[in-house]
């Protein structure tokens, strides 16, 4: 059975802090790893990673994949209160997209 594990499950930081969210996976027929941000209901797409060692970057967010060690990290620098959300990691294997439990990030002013 495909498995995606995220850590930590929750995190509380102050504005300006840098955070690192982790995602490890065990799947057959890996195709890609995706990060989503979920603020209220709909997850919104952040990154798709398919190759090891190539950093994807968007503003203060960046992510990298290690296909040998089967994990990915999502970094957020200079956090803002608007970054408060659940961050979901998902892995595509075959035709299925499997999600982790998510990391609840709270950024306090």
């Amino acid at each position, binding site marked *: 059975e495909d498995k995606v594990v995220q850590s930590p499950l929750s995190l509380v930081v102050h504005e300006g802090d840098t955070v690192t969210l982790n995602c490890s996976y065990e799947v057959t027929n890996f195709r*890609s790893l995706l990060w989503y941000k979920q603020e209220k209901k709909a997850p919104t797409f952040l990154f798709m990673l398919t190759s090891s060692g190539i950093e994807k970057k968007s503003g203060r967010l960046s992510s990298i994949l290690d296909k040998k060690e089967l994990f990915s990290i999502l970094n957020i620098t200079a956090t803002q209160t608007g970054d408060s959300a659940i961050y979901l990691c998902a892995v595509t294997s075959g035709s299925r997209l499997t999600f982790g439990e998510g990391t609840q990030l709270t950024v306090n002013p």
Partner: protein
Amino acid sequence: EAGVAQSPRYKIIEKRQSVAFWCNPISGHATLYWYQQILGQGPKLLIQFQNNGVVDDSQLPKDRFSAERLKGVDSTLKIQPAKLEDSAVYLCASSLFRYRVGTEAFFGQGTRLTVV
């Protein structure tokens, strides 16, 4: 570009009642997914369609849940009869392809179901 549309946004029903959710995917997206997200958990795939055919329904509780996508566009998900543990957000997503490399899924706003 219009996003994935879902309705209703909220629904409260009593246990043993029936409920139906509707989803209209992004135009041209052949793949449609229904996910169940219980509070504090990640989304769990219930069913995946490719056009109007089912490609994965292994986690769908078929004794009470059903879904269809008759014309390969809109889809409905039904629960009959509902149980208390069905309280969750039901998310619909669509993508151009069946998760081949380079394709991401886009999500609708979801339907929050409360079973009392």
